[in-house]
C-alpha cells in the first residue's frame, strides 16, 4: 500500500490522531489524565450507542432519525417515574423500557417502511411527539434516579475485591487479555484462510494493525486502572458496537441495509423485502435510543424535560464524519466509532480548556463540514474514468 491510498483509507483515523495530539498539548496534558480519559468514554457513551443505530438508517439511503433525542427523554422519564413514584424493580424497569423503545421504533418503522412516509417528516413528528409525552410524564419536573440496582447496572465500576486497591489491576489485566485474544484470533483466521487457499492481506500489514490496536487498548486500560477501573457503561457500549459491527459486516441481514441504499429497485427485484429493511432500521434505532435514555439517566442521576436535546445531531454528525455516505449504501461501524470519538475528543478538550459552549458548536459544525467536503472531493478525484 502506498502513502496515498493509506492516507485515503485512514483519513479520519489520522485526523483523530492529529486532533488528539493537538488537544493533549493545548491542555498541557490534562486531556491525558486518567479521569479525563475515563470520562471521554462515559460522556460519549450515548453518542456511540445511537450512532450505531443511526448508521443503519443512513445506510438505507441517507435517511436520518430526528426523534432519537426525544426518545431518550421519553424512555428516561418513564424509567425515572416508575422507580421513584412506583418503586418498581430496576430490572423490570429496564426490560419494560427497552420493550417500549422497540414499540416506538415499530411505530416509526411502520409508517416509514410500509406506508412510505418520508423518514425526515415522520421522525420530525416523532421528535415533537415523544418530547411532549416525555415532559408530560415528568410533569415538567426534574426526577432523580436513586435506585441502587439501576445505577449499578449502568454507571458503576468493576471492582474485584482483593485485587483492586489504589490501582485497579483488573482493568489492566482485562486490557492485556483482550490484546492477547486479538492476536490469537488474527493468527487463527490466517491459518484457516491459508488452509482453504483463500487470498489474504499481507501478514506484516495485518499484524502491524493489530499491534497498534493492542497498544492502544493496553494504554487505555492502564489509564482506566489508575482511575476507578473499567466502567460498566463501557461494557454496554462495547457490546452494542460489536453487535452492530458484526451485523453490518458479516450478516445477510446487515448486507440488506447496504443493498437498499445502493439501489432499492435492484434490491427489491433480488427478492429482498425492502419495506422490512426500513422497518427494522428504525426499530433498532429507537431501541438504541431507549438504551441511551437509561444510560444517561444512570450517569446524570436524573431526567428532566431537556434531557437528550440535540442528541440526534451528535449521532448523525458522527456517522457522516465517520465516512457514511449521505446518499446511503456505504459506511462502517468502525468509521462511525472513529467519528464519534473525534467529536468526543474535541468536546472534551475544549471543555477542559474552559472554552465557551457556543464555540464548541462552531467547531463541531466546522469539523462536520470539512469531513464531508473532504469525503466528496476525494471521491470525485478517484472516481471512475469517463
Amino acid at each position, binding site marked *: 500500500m502506498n502513502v496515498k491510498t493509506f492516507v485515503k483509507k485512514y483519513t479520519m483515523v489520522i485526523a483523530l490522531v492529529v486532533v488528539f495530539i493537538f488537544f493533549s498539548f493545548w491542555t498541557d496534558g490534562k486531556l491525558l489524565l486518567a479521569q479525563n480519559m475515563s470520562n471521554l468514554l462515559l460522556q460519549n457513551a450515548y453518542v456511540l450507542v445511537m450512532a450505531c443505530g443511526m448508521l443503519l438508517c443512513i445506510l438505507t439511503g441517507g435517511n436520518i432519525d430526528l426523534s432519537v433525542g426525544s426518545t431518550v427523554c421519553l424512555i428516561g422519564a418513564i424509567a425515572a417515574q416508575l422507580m421513584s413514584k412506583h418503586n418498581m424493580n430496576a430490572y423490570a424497569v429496564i426490560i419494560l423500557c427497552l420493550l417500549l423503545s422497540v414499540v416506538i421504533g415499530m411505530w416509526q418503522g411502520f409508517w416509514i417502511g410500509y406506508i412510505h412516509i418520508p423518514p425526515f417528516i415522520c421522525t420530525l413528528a416523532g421528535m415533537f411527539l415523544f418530547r411532549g409525552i416525555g415532559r408530560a410524564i415528568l410533569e415538567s419536573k426534574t426526577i432523580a434516579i436513586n435506585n441502587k440496582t439501576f445505577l449499578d447496572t449502568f454507571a458503576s465500576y468493576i471492582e474485584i475485591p482483593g485485587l483492586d486497591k489504589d490501582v485497579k489491576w483488573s482493568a489492566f489485566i482485562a486490557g492485556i487479555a483482550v490484546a492477547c485474544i486479538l492476536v490469537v484470533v488474527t493468527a487463527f483466521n490466517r491459518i484457516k484462510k491459508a488452509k482453504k487457499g483463500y487470498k489474504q492481506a499481507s501478514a506484516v500489514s495485518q499484524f502491524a494493525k493489530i499491534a497498534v490496536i493492542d497498544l492502544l487498548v493496553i494504554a487505555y486500560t492502564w489509564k482506566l486502572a489508575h482511575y476507578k477501573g473499567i466502567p460498566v457503561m463501557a461494557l454496554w457500549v462495547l457490546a452494542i458496537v460489536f453487535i452492530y459491527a458484526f451485523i453490518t459486516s458479516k450478516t445477510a441481514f446487515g448486507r440488506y441495509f447496504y*443493498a437498499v441504499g445502493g439501489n432499492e429497485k435492484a434490491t427489491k427485484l433480488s427478492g429482498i423485502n425492502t419495506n422490512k429493511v426500513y422497518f427494522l432500521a428504525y426499530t433498532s434505532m429507537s431501541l438504541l435510543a431507549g438504551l441511551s435514555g437509561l444510560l444517561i439517566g444512570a450517569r446524570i442521576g436524573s431526567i428532566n424535560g431537556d434531557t437528550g436535546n440535540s442528541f440526534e445531531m451528535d449521532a448523525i454528525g458522527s456517522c457522516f464524519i465517520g465516512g457514511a455516505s449521505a446518499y446511503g449504501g456505504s459506511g462502517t461501524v468502525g468509521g462511525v466509532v472513529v467519528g464519534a470519538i473525534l467529536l468526543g475528543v474535541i468536546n472534551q478538550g475544549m471543555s477542559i480548556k474552559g472554552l465557551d459552549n457556543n464555540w464548541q458548536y462552531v467547531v463541531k459544525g466546522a469539523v462536520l463540514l470539512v469531513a464531508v467536503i473532504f469525503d466528496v472531493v476525494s471521491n470525485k478525484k478517484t472516481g471512475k*474514468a469517463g
Partner: protein
Amino acid sequence: MAEYILEMKNITKEFPGVKALDNVNLQVKPGEIHALVGENGAGKSTLMNVLSGTYPFGSYTGDIIYNGEECKFKTLHDSEEKGIVIIHQELALIPELSIGENMFLGNERKGLLGIDWDRTYHEASEHMQQVGLKEEATTLIKDIGTGKQQLVEIAKALSKDVKLLILDEPTSSLNEEDSKMLLDLLISFKQKGMTSIIISHKLNEISYVADKITVIRDGSTIETIDNADHNVDEARIISGMVGRELSDRYPSREHNISDKVGMEVKGWTVHHPLYTEKKVVDNVSFNVHRGEIVGFSGLQGAGRTELAMSIFGRSYGSDISGELKIDGETKELKNVRDAIKAGLAYVTEDRKGNGLILADSIAKNVTMSRLEKVCSKGIINIDKENAVAEEYREKLRTKTPSVQQAVGNLSGGNQQKVLLSKWMFADPEVLILDEPTRGIDVGAKYEIYCIMNDLVAQGKSVVMISSEMPELLGMCDRIYVMNEGKMVAEMPASEATQEKIMAAILQSDKK
C-alpha cells in the same frame, strides 16, 4: 471553405492507469454524416468528450481544428458557442419540466423581467416543427415516450444553432420505427448542410445513414471506410472493431429440446399499476420447454417486460390473473422471493436502474439474490462469497482486476456479465432475459450468446426478450410476437423472418 470542418489530430488522453485514447485522428467533411464505431470502452465517447470540452483543453494532448481554426475548449459552453452540440446516450432532460422549458434550460429566453414565456414556447414549437415533433411545447417530458424525448434533444440542439451535431447511441433505447424516423431526420438535416457525427452499435443503421465510417479499437483509429453507396461490408467493420474475424455472429448449438415444459403461462392478464382499468397484458399464453430458447419480439410498449415482471413474483402491475406452471406444477408466486425459490430468474433490461448496485463490489452483487447460499445461520462467509464471485468471473470471462471492483467501474458488457452471474448464481430453471445485449458491443454480445447456449445445454429454459430481430432469429428456437399487450403470433425461428414478424405486428394493429 476548408476541406474538413473538423480535424482531430493525434489526440491522446490518459486516465490514471489507462490510456483511453492513443494518437487518434478523425477528419470530418462539411455536410456529411460520419459514424464512429467500436467496442464498448474503445474510446468513442471519450473522444467526443474531448471534442465537446467536457474534458478541458490541457487534459489531453493533440490538436482540434474546427472550421480552419485551432480550438481550445475549456468547457461545454465553449464548444456550444462554436455550434458543436453533443447529445448523450442517457438523455439529459428533466421529466417534471415541459418540452419548452427543457429546450431552453440554461439558455433561457429572457424578457424585461425574468423569462419571456411566450417567446420560449413560440420558439420551442418552431424547433419542434423542424424535427417533426407533434406535441404541445407545454407538455411535460415525462408524458412523452423515449422516441419523442430524443427528438426534443435534437430540437434543443437546433435551438443552439448547431453546426456539428454529435449523437451518442441515439437509437439504443428506441424501437425500429422510431429509429428509422430519427435516421431519416438526420439525412434531411444533411441535405440542408448540417454535419453530424453518430456513435452507434447498430451496424445496419450506420450502413444506412453514414457517409464515412471510422472504426476505433482500444483507443486508436483503425481505419475510415467510405460508405457513399450505403452498402458497406458489415463483416469488415466487425473485424475492424474486434480485431478478429467473427465468422458467425451467433454461436451454433445443438438443439436438444426436451419434451418437458419448463414454464407454462395460460390466460395471463395484467393491469396497469396506477390506471387499474387499463390492461397492459391481455390474456397471454405461452410456454417454454427445457433446453429451449424462446424469443419475444414486439415494438416498445408491447407489454413484454410487463409480462415478464408480473410473472416474476408480481413485481409489476395490479390485478394479475392467469395460471403459471413451472415444471408442470401450478405456482402462486406472491413476491420475488417466492419466484426465486420456484426456480425463476428475471434479468432486467435496465441493468443500472433495476439490476445492479453500482457502488458495491462484483462479489456483493453476484450473491445478492441468493445470499443464503454463502451464509450459515445468517452469517456471511465472505471468503466463500469471494470464491463464488471468482468462479463466475472465470466462467463468464468478466474483464476486471478483481471481484472487489465496484460494478460501476466496469464497461457495459462486463456489467451485463455480472448481472448474468448474479442470476446464474441463483440457480434458476427458467431464465427470462430482457434485452440481454442492449448497449453492449459485438464481442461481448457473442459471449452472452454463448452463455445462453450453455444454459440451455444444461437443460434450463430461456426466454429472451429483444428488440433486435436479427438476434432473435439467430438465437431462438421459437419466437412469440406481442403487440399492445396481446400475443399476436407464434412461429418456429426456422420459418421466421423480420418481414413476417413486422407483418404480424402491423396486421394486429389494423384489427
